[in-house]
Every structure is written in C-alpha cells, then in structure tokens.
C-alpha cells in the first residue's frame, strides 16, 4: 500500500515512526536518549517477561478466575496494591534519576531540559494518582469490610469497574514511556503552558485522559465506600464503635466524592481547549487560566487529605495494637478526622498566594491553613498517649510510626511557615516547597501505607512478612528520605527554583550531592521491599498465621481465619463494644463457636472490570493519538456493556451452603485450639502461629 494515501493517518492518527521511543537510542545515541529509550525498553521487556512468567507457570487461568473477574473486595484490594507497588517502583526510579541529574547538574548534567520536565511530570502524576491512590484504595478495600463485619462492599460490580478504570489510567501512563512523550507541564498541568500553542504534542493529552479515567474510577470508589460504611455494618457496630481506620476511610471516601469532580472538570475543559479550540484557559480570546488553578487546587487540596487520612487511620490501628492498649482519645480522633475533612475544602488558595489576588483573601486562606495544624496536632498527641505506658513493641510498622511522628511534625511546621503568605512569597516555586510536600507525603502517606502493608499482610495471605528485610527497608526509607529532602529545604531557602534541570550557583552543589547520596538509600529501601517479599514467600511455612491474630490485635478483622475465606465471617458478628475483638479476648471469648450457621450468598463474578480496563485504555489511547475510530468504538463498547448488564441483571449469586460454612469454621476453630499461644516477646519468632497468649492489659470500657 502506498503510504502517502490518507488511509494510514485515518487509522493511526498522529502515530508515526518518530513516536517510537524505543528506537530513539539508535538514531541519537546520547546519554539522554539512552535513558529515554531504556525506559521504553524496560516497559517492553517487563511486559514480555510478565507474559512469559504467567504463561510458563500456567497462571493465566487462575489469574483470570481468581482475580480479574472477581468481585471479592480482598482480591480487588490486592490488585490495587500490586498496581501501586509497580507504579511505586517506576516513581522511585524516576526520582532517583532526577536526583542523580541534579547531583551532576552544576552547569549541565546529562538530561535534557525536556526529558527532565517529563520526569517530574510523570513522577508527580504517578506517585499521586497511580501509587498513593491505588495503595490506600487497596487497603480500604481489604480492611474496611472486615472491620465493620461485612461480607463485601455494597456495590461489588462497581468496585471492579473502579479498579478497571484506575488500571486503564495507569496503563496510559506506562504506554507514554513507549509511544510519544508525556506532558512537561508538571503534575498539575497548568495552562496556558499545556495548551496547544505551547505543547501541540501528545504529552498533555496523556495527562488529561489518564486522569479523567482514574478520576471517574476514584469517584465511584468513594460512593461505594460511603454506602458500604453506612449500610453494611454488622449489628451493634455503631458509628462510634467503628475502628479508626474505618473512620478515616469514611472521611476519605466523602472527600473523593466531592473533591474529584473539580479535577474532572478541569481536565475536561483543558481537553475542550486542546481538541475543540475552546478558550477556557488560553491566553487569547478571553480565556482565564486562573480558573484552572482554582479548579485544580479545589481538587488538589482535599486530595492531600484523601491521601493522608487513611494513613492516619493505619497509624491509629498500629499504635493501639503494638502498644497493647486501647486507642487513646478515640472521640477526639474522630472529631479531628472530620475537622480535617471539612477544613480541607477551605484552604486551596494557599497553592497560589502569589497570583495577584487581594492580600485579605490571602490572609483568610493563610489562617484557615494554619487551623488544620490543630486537629493534626491532636492526633499526634493521641498516638503518643496511646504508646505511653503501653506494651510497646518496636516492630516494623512501629518503626514507620515513630519516624513518622518526628518527621511529619517537622514537615507540618514547614507547612505552617508556608501558610504565611508573606513568607510564601519568598520561597514560592523553590525547592523549599518540594521538600515540604515530600516531607508530608513520604513519612505521612508512604510510611503509613508500608506500615499497613506489613501489618495486614498475614491477614490476607496467611503468613507474615520477613521482619529483618522489613527493618532494612524501613531504616533505608527513613535515612534516604532525610538525606534526599532536608538539603532541599536549605537550597530552597537559598533560592534554588524547582522544576529546573540544572543550576549555575556552585553553592547548591554540596547539598545536591548529599541529596544524591540519599537517593542511593531510597533505592536500597525499594530493593529491600522486593527482597522482603521474595524471602517471605520462600519462608512462608515458618511464619504461618493459623489463628489469624499474629499481633494480638484489637479489631474485628483479626477475629477471622488467615487467609480469609471468600465470605469473611462464618457468621456475622454482633458487636457490643469498641475494639470488639480485644474485649472478647479479654473475656476469654475470642474464638467462640456460634449457635448456628446459615447459607451465605456472595455476588457472582463480573467481566465489567476487565472491559473497563481494556476499552478504557483503548478509548484514552484513541483520543490521545487522534485515532477517532478507536475512541468511538471503545466508548461504545463500554456504554453497551453497561446497558447489556443493566438489562440482563446481576449475575447469579454464589450460594455457600450452611453445612460447608460450618465444616470450614469448625475445622478452623479446632486448628486454633492446637496452636500454642505466644506472648508478645515471641511475636516475631517462628513460634507465632497467630494465637495470642492473654496478657494483662487495659481494654476499652
């Protein structure tokens, strides 16, 4: 076929040979392009390896049956966390490349400015939307139904759809490594720089469509969990008996419902500007980019609390469990969580104090920003008071927690500094700001997620994670974080601007080198996580969690077998107290036999998640590359899938007969009786098979 005919452009849109990143190394073998192509090759080889491994071990069938079409909230949670860990690896590697560039960046370095800009844009976008969000959504998925004594979420099919949409967004970001370039406009993608006049390529379009897809998925997740928490609680599980993690999940879900729409609107308007020549945010013809700044931060600031609240919830669970004490100040923690959720909508303007509005407006938002420090401070005191005179064990999650309490308070104090508009004018757009928000999000969010991963891992998989590699990873994260980001405070105050590939002031260089050394520790931390998983799986027979309660924990999820049966609870528990499982164990009633069993109905599998993931990706891809036929067909498939499913109704529920439930539950109870309970001194030893020896301790009244 003659390539000059208009056939190929109609099929392939604007995709051509120059879009193939993995070939660039052969055309321009500079270090910059070697890294660019190397990343593309890494995705390609990684993909091929993944397919090969799945084929070699004949895992396609089990993966399809047990995971991809499953509506089990635990399986969906696992898939979210796997996605988060993959994206974490990419985000960390990007961060390390950026730190290396800047260590070498006095008067040049090895990366081009454009490549560096793509790196910080993808790094931010990935870490927020495809690492942090899937990680916390995964934990919420796994833990919340268990903590409230439910068998599943309210809308299991919708849960699968949310996951599918999130995956499609992540897939688009991964494709951007191989085909074409990503936006150079940062994770907030401010126009007019992201308009056609400055970036006519595919970069900002990758940003737009991956965020719209993932954003819709997150909104649906928020709806799902608010209804689940309000409607699916076990009898007696009143709101004020809910574990703190469930409270924070509730607040985060409410924020998702109300905070995601501004992002969707901002991205849609930017898309209208780019695709249809609208003038929402353009320089010419009456566009107003300040609207974008307002919209994106009207989302962006509540988003910060969507990220941090579930981490606070994880810390609240961990601190009570590993201190062997009831959570101090439960009521104040609930009020603080709610206050943070509400205040989070009143501070968005502090992200652009310097954009020319009235000083009184700045003052109002500055004060509101400082106010958030109060409920957050309450929480820190509550956690410390929980540890006070507790039976504290410095396990891996507690290492994360204690480092978080120190580092997060430091980061919070730098936030109070930034909340003052007159100071913000001085350090705006410097690395001081970069140091600040990494100081909040790494010890706050990331440490919290990793602590939760370590804490709940045995519940989900039935064996504990290796603690030696856990400690190595935790300490490496802490040292790495401090070395990477504290120097950035210094150079920020010296005036070094963010998002700049290189610098000419030699005074920055020692700090940049120190930051580069920190990046080595962060790399070690990531590698240690991988090794930890490998070692833990290899040695799983020594760390079996038979009783389901390896940490002498306090909330309902630990009253179940590990790994969990699909139906979670053989019989729905009736709750009579806060921290119900701890109270029951104290009364010697931790492993009661119920008076009777009943048939259990569970929702059937669904293809909707897979359809969303595949055709969502295809839709975004079609829009990005102007393959209109692909976009139209994919969108139609998604719409028709919903209509067909609606007309056909729910898939048949699975019924598990009472006799089977009884047999399984009694077998487990019998097994529990054979396990020797361990005291907390021996918590990390092989002897711990998940049944806790009673200790004298304080319990909830």
């Amino acid at each position, binding site marked *: 076929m003659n390539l000059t005919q208009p056939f190929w452009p109609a099929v392939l849109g604007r995709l051509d040979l120059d879009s193939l990143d993995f070939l660039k190394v052969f055309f321009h073998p500079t270090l910059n392009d070697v890294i660019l192509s190397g990343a593309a090759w890494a995705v390609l080889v990684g993909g091929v390896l993944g397919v090969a491994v799945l084929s070699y071990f004949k895992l396609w069938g089990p993966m399809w049956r047990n995971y991809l079409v499953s509506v089990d909230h635990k399986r969906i949670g696992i898939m979210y966390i796997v996605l988060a860990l993959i994206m974490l690896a990419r985000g960390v590697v990007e961060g390390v490349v950026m730190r290396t560039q800047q260590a070498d960046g006095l008067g040049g370095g090895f990366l081009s400015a454009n490549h560096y800009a793509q790196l910080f844009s993808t790094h931010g976008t990935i870490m927020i939307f495809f690492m942090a969000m899937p990680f916390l959504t995964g934990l919420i998925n796994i833990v919340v139904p268990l903590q409230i004594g439910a068998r599943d979420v*309210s*809308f299991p099919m919708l849960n699968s759809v949310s996951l599918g949409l999130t995956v499609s967004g992540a897939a688009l970001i991964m494709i951007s490594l191989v085909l074409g370039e990503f936006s150079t406009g940062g994770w907030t993608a401010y126009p007019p720089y992201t308009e056609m006049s400055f970036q006519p390529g595919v970069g900002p379009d990758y940003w737009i469509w991956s965020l719209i897809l993932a954003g819709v998925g997150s*909104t649906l997740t*928020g*709806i*799902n969990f608010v*209804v689940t928490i*309000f409607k699916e609680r076990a*009898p007696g599980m009143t709101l*004020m008996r809910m574990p703190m993690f469930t409270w924070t999940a509730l607040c985060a879900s409410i924020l998702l*419902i*109300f905070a995601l*729409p*501004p992002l969707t*609107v901002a991205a849609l*308007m930017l898309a*209208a*500007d780019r695709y*249809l*020549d*609208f*003038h*929402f945010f353009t320089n010419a*013809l*009456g*566009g*107003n980019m300040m*609207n974008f700044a307002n*919209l994106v931060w*009207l989302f962006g600031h509540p988003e910060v609390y969507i990220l941090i609240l579930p981490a606070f919830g994880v810390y609240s669970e961990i601190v009570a469990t590993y201190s062997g004490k009831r959570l101090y*100040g*439960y*009521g104040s923690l609930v009020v603080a969580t709610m206050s943070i959720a509400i205040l989070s909508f009143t501070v968005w303007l502090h992200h652009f104090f310097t954009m020319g509005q009235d000083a009184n407006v700045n003052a109002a938002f500055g004060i509101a920003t400082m106010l958030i420090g109060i409920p957050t401070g309450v929480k820190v005191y509550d956690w410390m008071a929980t540890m006070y005179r507790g039976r504290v064990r410095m396990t891996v999650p507690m290492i994360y927690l204690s480092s978080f309490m120190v580092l997060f308070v430091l980061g919070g104090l730098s936030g109070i500094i930034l909340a003052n508009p007159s100071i913000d004018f001085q350090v705006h757009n410097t690395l001081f700001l970069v140091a600040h928000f990494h100081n909040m999000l790494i010890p706050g969010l990331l440490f919290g997620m990793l602590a939760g991963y370590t804490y709940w891992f045995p519940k989900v998989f039935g064996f504990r994670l290796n603690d030696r590699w856990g400690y190595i990873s935790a300490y490496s994260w802490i040292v790495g974080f401090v070395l990477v980001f504290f120097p950035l405070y210094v150079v920020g105050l010296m005036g070094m601007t963010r998002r700049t590939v290189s610098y000419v002031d030699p005074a920055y260089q020692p700090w940049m080198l120190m930051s580069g050394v920190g990046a080595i520790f962060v790399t070690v931390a990531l590698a240690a996580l991988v090794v930890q998983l490998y070692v833990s799986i290899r040695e799983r027979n020594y760390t079996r969690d038979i009783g389901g309660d390896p940490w002498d924990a306090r909330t309902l999820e630990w*009253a179940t077998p590990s790994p969990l049966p699909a139906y979670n609870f053989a*019989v*729905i*528990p*009736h*709750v*009579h*107290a*806060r921290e*119900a*499982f*701890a*109270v*029951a164990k*104290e*009364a010697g*009633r931790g492993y*009661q036999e*119920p*008076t*009777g*069993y*009943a048939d259990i109905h569970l929702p059937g599998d669904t293809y909707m998640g897979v359809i969303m993931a595949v055709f969502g990706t295809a839709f975004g891809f079609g829009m990005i590359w102007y393959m209109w036929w692909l976009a139209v067909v994919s969108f139609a498939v998604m719409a028709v899938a919903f*209509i067909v499913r*609606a007309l056909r109704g729910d898939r048949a529920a699975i019924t598990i007969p009472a006799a089977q439930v009884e047999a399984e539950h009694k077998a487990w109870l019998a097994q529990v009786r054979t396990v020797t309970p361990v005291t907390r001194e021996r918590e990390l030893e092989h002897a711990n098979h998940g049944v806790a020896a009673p200790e004298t301790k304080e319990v*909830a*009244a």
Partner: protein
Amino acid sequence: MSHAATMEPAGQNPGLTFGAEHAHDHDHAGKALSGFWLFMMSDLIIFGLFFATYGTMLVPMSFAGGPTPKELFEIPGAAMETAALLTSTLTFGFASLAVKYNFAKGKVLGWLAITLALGMVFLGLEISEFARMFAEGAVPQRSGFLSSFFGLVPLHGAHVTAGSIWLIMMMVQIARGGITDSVRSRLARLALFWHFLDIIWIGIFSVVYLGGLA
C-alpha cells in the same frame, strides 16, 4: 473513655457474640438509592463548577470583542424549553404515582412515553437554539464567554440525552417484564435524576438567560 458498654442490655457478653445468622434483609434498593444520591451530589459539584466558571466569564475580557449575552439570548426560546422540561417532570411524577399505586403497566408506559416526548421536544428546541447561535457566529471558539456557555448548557443537554436513553431502557424493561422490584428501584433513581436535571435547568434559565438579559 467509652460509655458504650453501659448502653448495652444487661447480661450481654462483652465484645463479640455470635448468634444464628439473622435473616438479613439485604435492602438492595435502599443501598442503590443512597449510592445514587451520592453520585448526584458529585454531579452537582460538576455543574456548580461549570456555573462558577461561566460566572467568571461574564466580563468584557472574556467576551473578547465577540457577542455578549444581551445580543445572544432570547427569552421565548428558553421559555419554551423551560416549559417542556418542567412539564416532563410533572408527567414523570405521574408515572411514579402510577407505579406506586400499582396501576396497569400500560398507564406507566404512557406517562413515561409522554415524558420522553417532552424530553425530545426540549432537546430539539435546545439544538435549534444552538444552531441559531452558530449561524450568528456565536461559536464556542469565538470567546472565553462562549466557551463557558457551551461548556455549561450542552452539559445539561447531554445529561438529558443520557436520561432519555435510560428512559427508553426502562420502557423496554417494563414492556418485557412488567413492574418488577428491579423496575421500581431503577425508576426511583431515574426519577431522582430527571428531577435533578430540572433543578439544574432552573439554574441555567435564571443565571444564563434571565441573568444575561437583566
């Protein structure tokens, strides 16, 4: 700290107890309706932001020398659209009542058909209104103000279109299977959606059309 235990009936076990499985009323309709309310709150934020954006664009800078609201909008067309949509909300109300009082499915289908027809009239009028504006050169590419107008008003129109497709699906479902529990539950949600769009339209009529001509 907690006084939860004192609120329990005397003689209860502390912590957990396991009774026989309660015959759980799963109340799927109630959950679905709650979820739908939340979805509409989320959707309302989207409309609110488009309204806010429109509000910021009612300034000479954003007119960019192009047509202004006073030159563009006409009350008769918008008033007819309003009449069609408000009447459709009334007829949908009759459909809901017909379901509630177990009228024959023909009556329900009849009211839904009238609702659908009025929805189509609304969309037809709206499209002709847009066509007239396009003919006058008032295209979204002309100015920031027109971009925000064509962001807000057709967004509502797209919602009405989606509602109409849903309405057709409901009519198919009713015609095939009668008034089942699933129909009742879905129709309650569609009614909520349809009335919601009415409220949004009242906002558009007041802010965009009446406000623009004031």
